[in-house]
């Protein structure tokens, strides 16, 4: 585990990643290209037009369990890159992680036969709708456009980030349920190898989504509140 204070902009990016391999998945979300050689975190960030402070803060959320940045820390960070980062994360979940999960799950559903297949399939379809409602139809289509307007200095009369604070449910719970069902409750003889593999994927995705919501709750919301307060 890398602690927040141990992350320095002068360390090599390669060393940071060697310390926690989960950070690797953050690079494409920031648009940081591979082939960064032995450059420092600060150099690589500058080359890719990424705020070093934002990069380090998000890395700390991934490496330091339970770390939640406070308002004072957020204030000093250039957050222009936050929305593109969050959108790239969403795209990664929707276009890569969930389809990958679904592919595995379809095989398990098939092998589960008429007795268990339909209930698993129904469960996943409902979950998929929940994810789409959360990420696509709410965050991407309501919250983010609102923030972009704010950044242009326009205030919407119909929406406030406070609503997001209250409506921000988590989508990890049902995912964890899915893992429990696959590991603990589905009869043991149905594709055990595949189920272990998918469970490892689910744990990773659930952890990722957890940290993603820390970013939304503890960076995005305070950021948007400050934008709201800055308008007359």
């Amino acid at each position, binding site marked *: 585990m890398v602690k927040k204070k141990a992350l320095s902009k002068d360390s090599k990016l390669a060393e940071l990643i060697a310390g926690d391999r989960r950070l690797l998945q953050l690079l494409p979300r920031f648009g940081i290209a591979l082939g960064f050689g032995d450059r420092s975190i600060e150099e690589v960030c500058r080359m890719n037009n990424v705020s070093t402070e934002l990069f380090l803060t998000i890395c700390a959320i991934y490496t330091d*369990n*339970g*770390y*939640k940045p*406070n308002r004072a820390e957020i204030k000093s960070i250039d957050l222009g890159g936050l929305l593109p980062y969050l959108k790239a994360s969403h795209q990664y979940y929707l276009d890569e992680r969930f389809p990958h999960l679904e592919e595995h799950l379809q095989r398990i559903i098939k092998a589960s036969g008429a*007795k*268990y297949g*339909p*209930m*698993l399939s*129904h*469960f996943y379809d*409902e*979950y998929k709708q929940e994810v789409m409602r959360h990420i696509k139809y709410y965050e991407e289509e309501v919250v983010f456009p609102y923030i972009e307007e704010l950044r242009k200095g326009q205030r919407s009369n119909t929406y406030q980030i406070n609503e997001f604070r209250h409506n921000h449910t988590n989508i990890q*719970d*049902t995912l*964890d*349920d*899915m893992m*429990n*069902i696959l590991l*603990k*409750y*589905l009869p043991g003889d149905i594709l055990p190898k595949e189920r272990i593999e998918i469970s490892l994927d689910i744990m990773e995705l659930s952890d990722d989504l957890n940290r993603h919501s820390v970013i939304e709750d503890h960076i995005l919301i305070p950021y948007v509140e400050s934008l709201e307060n800055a308008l007359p």
Partner: protein
Amino acid sequence: MRNRVIICEASEIIANGLAEIIDSMAQFDVVARIESPEHLCEKITTSDANIVIINPVLLGFLNKEFLSQLCKEHHDIHLIAIATSYLDHNMLTPYSGIIEINDTRAKVISKMNEFTQSENTKKADDVELTKREIDVLVAVAKGMMNKEIADMMNLSIHTVISHRKNITRKTGIKSVSGLTVYALLNNLIDENINPT
């Protein structure tokens, strides 16, 4: 399991300070801050809290009655007092922990941690669903709301919620759709019932 905390304190300075310390801890989320205990009961239900930190002064003479009523409706709730002035020893008996106004940050953190540890060991023993819990589970899986289940089973809505919390703790499953699959897999309900 993460702990969900409600802070009930009239002073905004104290409430915010306490919330800041607790929110900085990994295992704790402050889910609500309220100034008076008037709607505390509903707040516990709606925010699914398991810890209430309250200033005993707010309860005045109602202290014990109010709290025993509260504990009756929410079996698994834990009460912690935030003591901002001198309190009679008698007043503090219902609480499982006391945070004092001049405790340091480290002290508050260690008190909260100490509290959850005893909490977790206590919860480790029972794992089987009781008959009552199975009845509630089946009703949930059939798509019934808490209120409907309470009416059908002649229980208070808080008791239904407390059963649901126990079901989730024992099975590891939180969502209604997940519980439905659990009930189907364990032949607790007929697979022809469409859960939607």
